[in-house]
């Protein structure tokens, strides 16, 4: 496949939209001394999505690992230094060619598996795979396989549903720049590192700082495209400082910092609906056994902190207050999903693995709602086929796609986000109306979600 439009073009496409068109109003949070506008209370009913980008290319084959059968034989042949012993794996079940097990560094996620709250979709990729981190991550974030425009798939969702007054509807956490996924053509999300990095440093001179901040926010009147983009951000910076005043999030380290920040925002009545968390280091070209284990352990602790509020059984403290479980009202409306720009090659390269193609995605949902409630429910278990691995004599070089990732995006939009109990129906993305075995009429992945 020829892809003529580059990564830079994608980013540029996003950046050329004039600042004035991109307003996502963050207004004053209720209850603050500055406040006036309030977020519509109905937004508390929204279904929520936390998406985790494992940046660098997660080794899918050492995350959902061949455990027995013909695929295990090939695995043992080509994984010389990065092989995970079969008896350490957490069993997931049978696939074509054997069985697979979960990497042992993911005990919390395995707990959700055992509670029938986790789905594993195998062989996720897109047609015409690209092996560049940056090109492939852009494709995952836009959902555009033949890139023709620079909007992200969640940004287009925000375009369709809109962002109401005072809302922080889409947020990226800990990436230093707004993820492409959250850039729409009309509106966009916000990017923050933590709720502790949104405040001004020049406090303490009350009347003066207030005057300075007011004029700073008023730079939004700048007339020219780049000036105006900057000026618009001045106003947003001031408003974000107000909107996040007093918010706290425990920061025990690693991806848990971002997941607990996500939790704070999801529960803060800011209308937060989609959260994009990025965590790096997955480009394991060398020293993979040690590094990959640490990365997955960190991911698992982040998920544990998000849902359970504990780490290794020890309460995480926010100040001196332990962080408890995710409040039930939020938990029953929240889906966590992981992806990575690509998996890695079937065989290792010495102590690591080079860039590969298809890999599994994880989705973790709430406990099943009451039968007959009509609410959306994630179908737990293994979905789709395990990619072919060749034979011991002729191992495959790469794992080929068995699931077009666009079908998962479409399912999340039209089944999960649009659940009848939420106030935000989304008809889905025209770009994702793909066809093929196992994809529904709108392109969504058949059976990923059901109705209770």
């Amino acid at each position, binding site marked *: 496949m020829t892809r003529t439009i580059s990564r830079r*073009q994608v980013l540029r496409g996003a950046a050329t939209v004039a600042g004035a068109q991109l307003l996502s109003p963050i207004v004053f949070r209720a209850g603050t001394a500055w406040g006036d506008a309030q977020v519509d209370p109905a937004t508390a009913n929204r279904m929520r999505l936390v998406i985790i980008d494992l940046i660098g290319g997660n080794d899918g084959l050492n995350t959902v690992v061949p455990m027995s059968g013909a695929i295990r034989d090939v695995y043992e042949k080509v994984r010389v230094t990065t092989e995970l012993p079969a008896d350490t794996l957490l069993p997931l079940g049978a696939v074509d060619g054997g069985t697979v097990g979960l990497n042992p560094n993911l005990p919390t996620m395995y707990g959700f598996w055992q509670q029938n709250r986790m789905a594993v979709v195998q062989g996720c990729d897109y047609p015409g795979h690209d092996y560049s981190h940056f090109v492939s991550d852009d494709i995952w974030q836009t959902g555009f396989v033949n890139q023709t425009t620079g909007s992200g798939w969640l940004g287009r969702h925000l375009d369709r549903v809109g962002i109401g007054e005072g809302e922080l509807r889409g947020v990226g956490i800990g990436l230093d720049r707004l993820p492409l996924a959250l850039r729409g053509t009309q509106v966009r999300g916000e990017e923050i590192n933590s709720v502790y990095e949104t405040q001004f440093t020049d406090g303490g001179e009350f009347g003066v700082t207030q005057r300075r901040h007011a004029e700073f926010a*008023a730079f939004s009147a700048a007339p020219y495209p780049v000036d105006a983009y900057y000026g618009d951000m001045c106003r947003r910076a001031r408003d974000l400082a107000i909107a996040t005043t007093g918010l706290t999030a425990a920061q025990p380290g690693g991806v848990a910092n971002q997941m607990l920040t996500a939790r704070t925002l999801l529960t803060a009545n800011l209308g937060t609906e989609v959260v994009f968390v990025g965590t790096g280091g997955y480009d394991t070209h060398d020293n993979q056994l040690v590094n990959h284990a640490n990365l997955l352990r960190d991911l698992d602790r982040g998920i544990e902190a998000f849902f359970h509020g504990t780490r290794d059984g020890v309460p995480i403290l926010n100040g001196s207050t332990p962080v408890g479980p995710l409040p039930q009202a939020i938990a029953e409306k929240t889906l966590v999903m992981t992806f990575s720009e690509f998996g890695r090659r079937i065989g290792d390269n010495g102590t690591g693995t080079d860039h590969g193609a298809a890999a599994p995605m994880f989705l973790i949902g709430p406990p099943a709602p009451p039968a007959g409630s009509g609410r959306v429910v994630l179908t737990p278990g293994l979905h789709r086929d395990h990619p072919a691995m060749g034979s011991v004599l002729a191992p495959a070089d790469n794992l080929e796609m068995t699931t077009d990732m666009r079908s998962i995006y479409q399912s999340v939009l039209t089944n999960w986000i649009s659940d009848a109990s939420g106030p935000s129906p989304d008809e889905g993305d025209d770009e994702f109306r793909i066809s093929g075995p196992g994809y529904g009429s709108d392109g969504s992945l058949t059976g990923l979600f059901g109705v209770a």
Partner: protein
Amino acid sequence: MGEGRALATPATREDVARLFGRAAFGATKNDLDVWTGKDYALVVDALFPPATPVPLPLTDENARITGESETFNVTPSQKWWLERMRSTPWPLLERMTLFWHSHFATAYTGAPDVGHVMKQNNTLRTHALGDFRKMLHALTVDGAMIFWLSGFQNRRGAINENHARELFELFTMGTMPQTYTENDIRQAAKALSGWVVNANRVGVFDTNRHDRSVKTVFGADVGGYPAADPREATEYQEICNLALLQHTTARYVAYKMVCSFAYVPDTTDLVNDPDPLVDAVANALRPSWTDPGGVWDITKAMKTLLNHNAFRYSQRGTGNVLVRSPIELIVHLGRILGASLNNNNAQTHWMPLFGLQRMGQTPFRPPNVAGWPMGTDWLTAPAVQGRYNIGDLMAKVWASQGLTTAAATILPASGDVPAWISFMGLGKLTPETQQRINAYLANPGTGDEPTKQRSMLILLAASPDWQVM
């Protein structure tokens, strides 16, 4: 005069402000006074050091490397470099070194100690305005780079593609569009095999780790030499040279220069539709096609860029266009205030690096192998708040160095807006910013003159005019 080159006209105050603001960590009032009215091309020439490398009357780099050996404490090196940027007589050389640091982005965390990236920093500076071919060769076997991109693990029988891919994607040809194949990467990786790093943090070739097969890259054969043939040790140069022969390389490097020093071009198809400034800079950078081994003259490319009408006049009709990077802002404030960025004051020594972290640019710690953002990608709401904070932080740094006693002579009176424009290194203010400054002065929230002066510094440093040039 070549096509697109500015006519021999006197530099206006705005010309000087823009040129220094984009290429020399910002102008001071003195710079504006000295250079305004001089021939524009002469002002450009004056930014270039007389020879490369230039000995500088600053901290000895070798002592710095030794000092940072066997440690992960990068802070002294970061502060040292920031202060060098601020106090050097040749800011363009440091600005270029910073540009190449983002191009060949390497983080100190990838190597066993900070000395590796300090050594790389020297190498980048040595070639920063020299021959891109020599720089590419040096960086390909640079100690910090060999660790950063897994080269030390790339050996016969265990070929590691990490470095070869980024050599093509990020350092030479780019993906605008991609003009190489996966097979080119795999073959080039073999040619790069065998390099390790010795105790002096220098890349060394180990023939026993080298893949001796014939590699076919862009249709040309490389290597296949008998065991221990000395030509094995320069196969990496052949790969670099082949990449330099690809027609996308000069345009890709020029594109990054234009993004860093002028504007982010609208057109990004480097093959069929290059931006005119990108094309001009690329033509100046690469040698003639009849001289395939010739010099890739970075100085010539930069002079072309800085003299070009598209650089000098790109603001017409569209306002200012270049979002300055955080390091440029901090260093510019240090220059304006005469405040050291390598200070040891217990209260303020951390503030410049803290300011940089909030804005998203920590020296020797680029976010990933592709380096720092460009253009409006810098601008998230918290990062722009970080850009507001630096006026306050640097005022505190300045005050802590006992410089406030001279405040009356250094900082203009709060109400003297024309003096403030010069003090900040600007040629003018847009009417919109002027309006905000006037609004502040009409209702400053205090009657205290030093506080009003500090507010002027904070607001002007946070203004679109100063942040975007």
